[in-house]
């Protein structure tokens, strides 16, 4: 099987061939690519981010992201739940928006939204 590694921008083309009990991995520029390729065949994991609306802040949007990769199949569900939230300022980068969205990964703020001046 062919896998394009997304761990770093080099985007190596990695081939995974089953060999007896295990797998042989070829074309990876580094060891991280081997782990990635094998995980890609069993359970693909991804980080992702969202833009969520915030009330009462100096900006109207907060960027949020997963703190660690989540199962790819869970992304749509997490995104749906997050978009349904009503958030209000202040929010600091690093604040947990939803804890444990999948495994130990939290959805955390990636930007800071301060209270709007005069409120």
């Amino acid at each position: 099987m062919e896998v394009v590694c997304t761990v770093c921008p080099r985007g190596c083309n990695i081939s995974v061939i089953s060999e007896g009990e295990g797998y042989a991995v070829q074309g990876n520029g580094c060891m991280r690519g081997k782990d990635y390729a094998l995980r890609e065949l069993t359970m693909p994991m991804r980080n992702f981010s969202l833009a969520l609306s915030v009330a009462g802040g100096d900006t109207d949007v907060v960027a949020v992201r997963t703190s660690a990769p989540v199962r790819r199949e869970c992304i749509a569900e997490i995104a749906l739940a997050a978009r349904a939230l009503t958030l209000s300022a202040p929010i600091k980068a690093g604040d947990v928006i939803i804890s444990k969205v999948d495994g130990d990964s939290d959805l955390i703020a990636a930007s800071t939204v301060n209270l709007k001046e005069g409120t």
Partner: protein
Amino acid sequence: MINCESRSVVVIGGGPAGLSAAIAAFDAGAKDVLVLERDTRLGGILNQCIHNGFGLTLFKSELTGPEYAARLIDMASERGIECRLNTTVVSVAPDKTITCVSEEGVFSITADAIVLTCGCRERPRGAIGIAGARCAGVYTAGTAQKLVNIMGYMAGRECVILGSGDIGLIMARRMTLQGAKVRAVLEIMPRASGLMRNVVQCLNDYDIPLMTSHTVVDVLSQGGRVSGVVAAKVDNDMRPIAGSEFLLPCDTLLLSVGLIPETELAREAGIGLHRVTGGAEVDDTLMSNIDGIFCAGNMLHVHDLADYACLESEVAGKRAAEYAINGGVTRGAFTSVECGDGIRYAVPMKILSSGSGSITFTARPSAEYALGRICIEADGEEIYSKREAGIRPATMLRYVLNSAQSDKLRSASRICIKVRE
């Protein structure tokens, strides 16, 4: 004019390149560095790039754009570097007088050295001449990115994206994650023009079709808003093939049809531009043809990684500080860098024979090679070579030469960079 101040190094543009240049200039000994930024905040385009994957080289971690910007902003403020926001530079004169406009009015600043880090802009719809309705719902991918990620407006519900540049791919994923449907990404070339990792994690992950050798031939509208686009297959000369047209119903068309260096100030200052990059032409200190004006980041050439734009800007910032501290440099003879087989352009374009220190090359390949060797030659002698797998025009190449290799280039009368198979 209400006053005239003077500074050692002035950086124009407070995005990632500008902040990196300012930090490097400060660290190289220029203590009164000033950053001028026209927006209400620092960080430039990173603020709207909320996807992750930034900073693997520079910060050894995977950050979103706003987090990456925050790190650079913190580094600048730790050093007490003054950054003036809401300040638009209207002109830069060859004598390094900068004219600005802000709430305080019009004022000028004289600088010993200037670093231009003005970034780039998107190729607008007009530049590619799509036929059809002039209705609402046609955006450049970057405008849609700002609408969604900064202003909190959904740019559309059903999208078609024309062009598979990185921003187009990233916006395909963004619109999907925010709850829109992306029908397809159309690319006129036979292959994606963005990074492979973005094709995988932005399109394949979300089952968004990438239709290569396709373009938009008509935009349809209903009630003043896009109601669909007519797509067609193109032949080898990129001309639409009659009879291959089909309708893609949508309410939004996003254009990701290329980025061009922002060179308005540079041109006015008399800075020579490069015919391929569209950005400034620079020597190995990243100085333009105008003494004391340095250029870096996307205004020099469009980068695919923020990390590389920052590393490049560090060189410009450091050299600008040296220039300011030494009261100028005398530039003697130089040798132009020739681009041989497989290389579309390389930065720097000229190597000064009088310079010192290590030279960094960045180059954009012109073709795909499954396996190739990048060679840098001085008078026909190979002084640097590196094997590369999967050379593609979408992926910029970057090489840091050591001092000995760099000195060999400085004494050469012919310099060439090429790909050997």
